[in-house]
């Protein structure tokens, strides 16, 4: 039996059932990411999946008919991403400086 592979990634936005909060109607919007994989051979089989569900926004319908979209973000995640960017920049600058130094030495020699 030949080996079979199935890999699939799904990324989409889900709009949920409206939530009634007093005179406001809120429609929750979430971002879904699904990654799944399956492998199958003559003597084995395996499968796995990873799912991430994060709120993206909420659509607010006011009693006067006005509709507003409120974006939901994660300041902790944003701060960590920015810290990681700083880290990558520092490492890249350091490596570039060390390489430049080594190159200058070689030229001088």
């Amino acid at each position, binding site marked *: 039996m030949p080996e079979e592979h199935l890999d699939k990634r799904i990324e989409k936005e889900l709009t949920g059932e409206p939530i009634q909060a007093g005179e406001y109607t809120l429609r929750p919007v979430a971002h879904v990411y699904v990654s799944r994989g399956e492998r199958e051979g003559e003597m084995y089989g395996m499968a796995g999946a990873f799912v991430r569900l994060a709120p993206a926004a909420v659509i607010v319908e006011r009693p006067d008919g006005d509709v507003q979209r409120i974006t939901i973000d*994660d300041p902790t995640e944003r701060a*960590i991403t920015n810290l990681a960017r700083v880290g990558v920049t520092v490492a890249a600058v350091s490596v570039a400086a060390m390489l430049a130094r080594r190159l200058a030495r070689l030229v001088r020699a």
Partner: protein
Amino acid sequence: MTQTTERSHELIEKMIDSLKTDAVFGAPIRQGDVTLIPVSRVWYGFGEGSGYGRTDTPADTPPEGEQPQAAEGAGEGGGGGGSVRPMGYLRIANGKVSYEPILDNGRLALAAFAMASWNVFWIAATLRAFARRR
């Protein structure tokens, strides 16, 4: 399709079909004139596998008078994990709807410490390279 992958396939299909925003938006909590809706982030993952092996070489010497038996074995296993992390809440009060995020100070402090160590390492390595004599 083996029994394991067939079962996992069905489970994954069911799981994808059952994904709803309810998992990340909580039920409204009303206290006086204020309504709060908790908001969180969810992730989970799982895996399952099985295998079968067979060899014509007998595993043990058979008892006297018996034919040697082929050695074979099978096994299966699986595991999974997940996490739910609060992100903030929606606040409905005084004719206004707003999103109030929650800053996770513990995670932030840990990330800042890790990043500071990382930066110190690279800066020290660079200074060492420049301080070295020819």
